[in-house]
């Protein structure tokens, strides 16, 4: 008994020593340090620049041609709605010009469309003759607009209809101030937490709350997959430098694999902790409050650990049967294709966290961690039974994959040269 105890203690010590070296040597590499710091910098920089760019930088003015068949709207629009808009948005001007109506209105419209096709202006608007008195229409022509301009077309539509509305109020002897006053209804959005305090949420808070599930899912993703890359490169290095046989003369393949996985789990947790801290700091610096419940944190850790173990088993198996990083890429492809699913569909999942898609993906073991964290942090009251079932399935998958990976690792790690075929790997699994 004493022998067993001391031997398992010694075994644990070996595993921890391997883990410690793995952590230190990985954390020292340039790729790790750069990745740790540069990714948040790039993300922050991109957000900052795009938000500034959309606010400040001048955009090409939109040019709009208008054929006002009623003859009443153009001047009013130009001096009213459009000039107000242009004063408020110095960087995003909308220039309107009259396309003089010919004798025949149809000929005018055909001429305008022709010029639009030639690219003389970005949009062409035709106002029906009875636009103010009767229920005439605004016809809004565009010709293959580019997406950047497309988003501003909405403004043009709004301003044009605003100009028409104002004329209609005048025609009915209504004061436009009065109408505006009657139309405006103030709304305060208040989200009540568990406590007493009622905080009116700023739009920034709402945005942060909306992005939070994605952020958590992204951390899980990086912790699992990004760390897996380190696992693979560390194994390929050991195979390449032939250090593996020296290691195996001192420790068992299982101890080596366990040590690596634990060491790199610490690497993953470092990345997650640093990024989460940076995001939290940035958010509170911007005055955005982020509340994260304790329950969510527990799930986050449980799902991360299980998800990480699942992927590290896969990556350990891949790394052990390949000799170069290039060879691993072919095998990594299918894994990455699967993991990308929640990244692409996160929007749908957040919108409908208890929908069939979210439920189904929760029980695809490689995706369970990401999808469940997304669902729980999206505020869905996921039934506890579903959470436990997903954890049980994930844990069972992890146990199976660890068992298989240990077998593949044991044989594959010493193989140099040709990569083994699938049939051969299946044979290793059957060996005792």
């Amino acid at each position, binding site marked *: 008994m004493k022998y067993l105890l001391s031997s398992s203690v010694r075994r644990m010590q070996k595993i921890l*020593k391997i883990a410690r070296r793995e952590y230190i*040597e990985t954390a020292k590499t340039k790729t790790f340090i750069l990745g740790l710091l540069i990714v948040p910098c790039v993300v922050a920089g991109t957000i900052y620049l795009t938000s500034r760019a959309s606010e400040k930088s001048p955009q090409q003015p939109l040019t709009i041609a208008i054929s006002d068949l009623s003859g009443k709207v153009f001047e009013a629009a130009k001096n009213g709605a459009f000039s107000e808009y242009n004063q408020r948005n110095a960087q995003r001007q909308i220039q309107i010009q009259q396309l003089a109506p010919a004798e025949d209105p149809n000929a005018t419209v055909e001429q305008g469309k022709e010029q639009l096709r030639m690219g003389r202006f970005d949009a062409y608007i035709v106002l029906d003759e009875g636009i103010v008195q009767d229920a005439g229409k605004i016809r809004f022509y565009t010709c293959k607009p580019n997406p950047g301009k497309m988003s501003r077309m909405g403004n043009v539509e709004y301003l044009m209809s605003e100009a028409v509305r104002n004329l209609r109020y005048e025609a009915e002897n209504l004061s436009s101030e009065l109408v505006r006053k009657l139309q405006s209804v103030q709304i305060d959005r208040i989200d009540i937490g568990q406590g007493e305090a009622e905080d009116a949420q700023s739009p920034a808070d709402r945005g942060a709350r909306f992005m939070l599930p994605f952020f958590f899912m992204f951390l899980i993703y990086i912790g699992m997959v990004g760390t897996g890359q380190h696992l693979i490169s560390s194994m390929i290095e*050991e195979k390449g430098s032939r250090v593996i*046989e*020296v290691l195996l*003369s001192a420790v068992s393949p299982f101890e080596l694999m366990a040590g690596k996985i634990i060491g790199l789990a610490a690497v993953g947790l470092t990345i997650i902790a640093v990024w989460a801290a940076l995001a939290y700091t940035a958010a509170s610096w911007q005055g955005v409050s982020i509340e994260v419940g304790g329950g969510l944190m527990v799930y986050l850790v449980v799902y991360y650990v299980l998800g990480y173990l699942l992927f590290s088993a896969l990556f350990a198996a891949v790394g052990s049967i390949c000799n170069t990083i290039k060879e691993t890429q072919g095998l990594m492809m299918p894994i990455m294709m699967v993991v990308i699913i929640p990244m692409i569909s996160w929007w749908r999942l957040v919108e409908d966290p208890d929908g069939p898609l979210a439920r189904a993906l929760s029980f695809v073991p490689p995706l369970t961690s990401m999808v469940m964290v997304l669902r729980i942090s999206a505020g869905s009251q996921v039934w506890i039974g579903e959470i436990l079932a997903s954890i049980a399935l994930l844990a069972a998958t992890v146990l199976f994959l660890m068992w298989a990976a240990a077998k593949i690792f044991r044989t594959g790690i010493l193989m140099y040269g040709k990569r083994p075929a699938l049939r051969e790997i299946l044979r290793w699994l059957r060996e005792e």
Partner: protein
Amino acid sequence: MLLIMDAVFVNRVNKSFGAVRAVGDLSVRVPAGSIYGFLGPNGAGKTTTLRMIMDIIRPDSGDIELLGQRSIGRAKSRVGYMPEERGLYRKMTVAKVLAYFGAIKGVSNAELAERVPRWLSRVKLAETAGKKVEELSRGMHQKLQFAVTAINEPELMILDEPFSGLDPLNTDLLKGVILEMREEGKTVIFSTHVMHEAEKLCDYILLINKGQAILDDRLAAIQARYKSGAVCIEAEGDTGFIQRLPMVASVKAEGKGLEIGLTDGGDPQELLKALVNRVRVNRFEVKVPSLHEIFVKLIGSANAEDS
């Protein structure tokens, strides 16, 4: 408790890789405290046998005991293994690599503080302690690898081609350390295909070819068995009479002296007596067959039969 224990006991072991039979029905006992040479041409199965002893690969059949243990995992910390493919972490410093491998072999930090500098100076690498492994020359790398193997002060050293790529000075350095280890009562197994290295070091020889044991005995016994029945002499005076002596079958000039082939049952002592009466003898050497010759004779003929 047995008094004389086998450090390694390999019993009827087989191992195939696909259709290739790397080791076939091989048995060998390595007595504790001896230096045992595993000899054979390239691809004979030496490395495979050593890897099976270290439980790095498993035999298809047969069993292996290491330091009296059936479970090799338990004995691992008492063994030092230097694989043929050398490898160390290139980005770590010399002292750290040595300490790391010591640590995972179960050496305590307190012991490492003393052992790391001691072993570095024993293989004359003390000045490079702070250098990165990738900055070392090939010979230095190999000496460090040897220190890594020995850092847990094992009872049994298993060295796969320990001298390949070393210059004569470093070869002698490692040979010296190996002989000191035998003095300390340790067992050393090493493989080589360079025969004269084995000749100078080994107590026992196992000659393998194509996975089969061809010879397995004490070096002295092997040399006695394959004695060539020849004598080399250097003598002053007229040596023409030698050809006519009854125990002499042939005489051949070799360098300054003569190589004399004896008849079957011809006794070198009789020859010496006959010589000292007639000429002044400066050198008289009963020729011991070199392992190289035995190797070429046994393996050359075996492999010639195949082709």
